[in-house]
């Protein structure tokens, strides 16, 4: 396994995941899909962060950044899910209203 090629592949996969997930976040109407898409998009970025060009030992700062990012992502997703549940209870459906008062 050559050193630099494998990490680059991960970073590229991360990019694809990010683009696809952001698209889903905007386009998919169901709020749960949007939330999960947001979570996945962040994971895509984490893959790009951990890219190590020289194929040498992994970069501890990059890994620490990703660890931090994961926790933040978990927190936001968890809260988003609770907010979604409450919105669903209150409005009867898990979608955003597209018309608000003018």
């Amino acid at each position, binding site marked *: 396994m050559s050193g630099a090629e494998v990490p680059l592949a991960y970073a590229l996969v991360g990019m694809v995941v990010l683009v696809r997930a952001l698209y889903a*976040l905007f386009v998919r109407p169901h709020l749960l899909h949007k939330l999960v898409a947001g979570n996945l998009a962040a994971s895509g970025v984490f893959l790009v962060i951990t890219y190590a060009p020289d194929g040498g030992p992994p970069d501890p700062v990059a890994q620490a950044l990703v660890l931090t990012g994961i926790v933040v992502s978990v927190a936001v997703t968890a809260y*988003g899910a609770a907010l979604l549940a409450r919105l669903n209870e209150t409005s009867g459906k898990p979608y955003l209203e597209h018309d608000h008062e003018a």
Partner: protein
Amino acid sequence: MSGAVASWLLAAPVALPLGAGLIVPLLRRGRSLAALAAGAGVVAAALLLLAVRDPDGAMELAVGGWSPPLGIRWRADLLAITFLLSTAVIALTVALFAALHLPRAEPALAGRLWAPLLFLWSALNALYLSADVFNLYVTLELLTLAAVMLVTLEGERQALDGAMRYLLVALAGSTVYLLGVALLYHATGTLDLTLAAGAVPGAALALMTVGLMAKGALFPLHGWLPPAHAAAPAPGSALLSAVVVKSAFYILLRLWLEAAPDEHAGRMLLAACGTGAVLWGSLLALTQKRLKLLVAYSTVAQLGYLLLVFPLAVGSWSGPAYAGAVWLAVSHGLAKAAMFLAAGTVMHALGHDRIAELRGLAHHAPVTMLTLALAGVTLMGLPPSGGFVAKWLLLSAAFGTGQWFWALVLLAGGLLAAVYTFRVIGAGFGEAALARVPRRAPQWLAFALATAALLAGVVAELPLRQLQEAAP
């Protein structure tokens, strides 16, 4: 200045509200007192920082004792101190208003305001001080969560909907911003803005900018703001419009004027977005039927002015343009907070905020009417307000750099602001009874903020001169 003093003086604005925010959810009583005490401490620290400021440099602290690139650096230069102090004054006043107004107006949510308010404040202060792009990401996340929580406090479907929209846009924005951070790190090997200055890849700058525009409701990514800010309780809306959204602009200032000062291509694009914000936001503000939505759209518009600083801060005009933009941010913060607090009083007094039915307000709540009028003066940019002085500087820079078309934007925005302000003021006259008599003390607090915005033009000479000297 000894290292020890620097350390706790810089840490206080971050640590005090954070500590209070963590303790407050565990208290049954005394939440507002804890919050106000922490807030007073922050104001004191900010004033002290201003007093001991070294005009030639900035107070800096290597957090944890580790300097960049290994560690994170806090720096308190004039820009940071300006934002720290103005945010502190606004936040403390809003907190006082909330302590006096909410128990009577909205008792169900009164106790739940304090934690998000404190966390929001701590995150803002950390954001102002931080010179590390990843640290900025984490502070932005804390800020967003606290802000979204403020939007949900009323609990109705519209509030939850606005909050969810805000959360999703902010989530997308953070993710794009984080990708920019990743690229910056890979290209420069550091996360510190000063170390990376001049070497920021255009792609990283673009990504971070797009992410920040989403978080800061900068046209065309502004759609989430009006429903969210209108649905929050009045003190929440005040903080959201006055200081939270400006945090994105603050970071953009740091990025475009300090870290990547040679990127000129994007600056025009930013100002074009600003133009869109001013025109679109103002036009939509004119058509609103509810006061809080009008004020929220006004925020979208006023944020647009701030983006004009980027093409104007060139050459010998960078000082005036920079000072004008910063002063505009400060003045708008004071005025917008005043407006939303006044809107809170209106809501309480009438039971609604429909502009068509504001009759009786001028007669029975004159302080609130006056607050709205004075705040409007700053938004319009009339003398002697801070808004006027700031716009004057930006106008001079526009003509001085030969970019007179931005002057048209500034003037057009002022005219439109006048129209929607007079619409609100005019609606308040006439005779009608109020549903409830609002307390006087909170009204005076809002009035004080509006007056401060007005006086910001009068006392501006020294601060503006210092800002011009400190311009990057």
